[in-house]
């Protein structure tokens, strides 16, 4: 049982909770303001390495950001996917919500949208993400998310290509979707 106002968020990211609470309870901000501020705090804090710049590098070592914000009163939504070289993902998502009729912008085009509205372009790489990337390469690119390709993605780095059907090696034929992510991988990063 609860009461209002309420701030609730995933994980023990309490600085984010407090930031949102300050906005909604002490500063007279809206629920949308509070969500933006709370998530922004997590982006600055790089919560758990799974939020904000400098974490969870992709195969090429680049960090990209996904974010969404929703106003239930109007049923408006703004979102960005694979946002590159801009740190303030939730704030860019809010601009998508409030300054366009669209819902989701992605990749370099989302970056260009952000830059046009005054956000700054900067690298999202950190010493930590560089090390994560280097360790991954040194570990034969394990784990990774490729299946049914050659060379065997469970043993080697790419580049990968489609195998000829008669040469597909057994360990490479992962048909069970439950093996897409092992429990250890879930601990390395998550959405």
């Amino acid at each position, binding site marked *: 049982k609860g009461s*209002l106002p309420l701030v609730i968020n995933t994980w023990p990211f309490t600085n984010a909770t407090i930031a949102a609470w300050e906005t909604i309870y002490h500063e007279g901000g809206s629920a949308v303001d509070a969500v933006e501020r709370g*998530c922004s705090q997590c982006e600055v804090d790089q919560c758990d390495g799974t*939020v904000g710049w400098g974490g969870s590098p992709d195969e090429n070592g680049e960090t*990209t*950001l996904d974010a969404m914000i929703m106003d239930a009163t109007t049923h408006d939504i703004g979102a960005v996917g694979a946002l590159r070289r801009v740190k303030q993902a939730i704030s860019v998502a809010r601009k998508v919500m409030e300054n366009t009729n669209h819902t989701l912008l992605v990749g370099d085009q989302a970056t260009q949208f952000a830059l046009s509205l005054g956000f700054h372009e900067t690298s999202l790489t950190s010493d930590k993400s560089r090390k994560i990337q280097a360790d991954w390469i040194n570990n034969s690119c394990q784990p990774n998310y490729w299946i049914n390709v050659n060379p065997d993605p469970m043993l080697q780095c790419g580049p990968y290509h489609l195998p000829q059907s008669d040469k597909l090696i057994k360990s490479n034929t992962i048909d069970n979707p*439950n093996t897409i992510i092992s429990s250890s991988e*879930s601990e390395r990063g998550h959405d």
Partner: protein
Amino acid sequence: TIGMIVIDSNGLISTGTSTNGLSHKIPGRVGDSPIPGAGAYAEKDVGAAAGTGDGDIAMRFAPAYQAVVNLKLGMSPTIAAKDAIERMANYFPNAMLALIVANNQGDFGAACNGIETFPFSVINPNQSKVTVYRVNC
């Protein structure tokens, strides 16, 4: 990933997510976090839900949407979250998935799968500071 729900004293609701996704993802991959109904969802006068976990799985089920629909059907936030999680776990029993759910009265709950416990953070006028709750998965 952070998923957040805020409901003001008048019952106005907002929700959001922010994440850098999975380590070592294939370039161009986007998870569930920016997908409405998957990473988060809200309906006025009803409530909201937000998730975290394996977005490649979650985006196939729209669990946040399902949880809010469950609230409309009269479920408590905890039961609404459990139902949405179970729908995914039936297909992917090992996937790491978690949901927080709140209704427009400020009642809240959570459910999870694939990890031992799932912690989430809450503050409301009943509490003098942020409380971190844990649910068993």
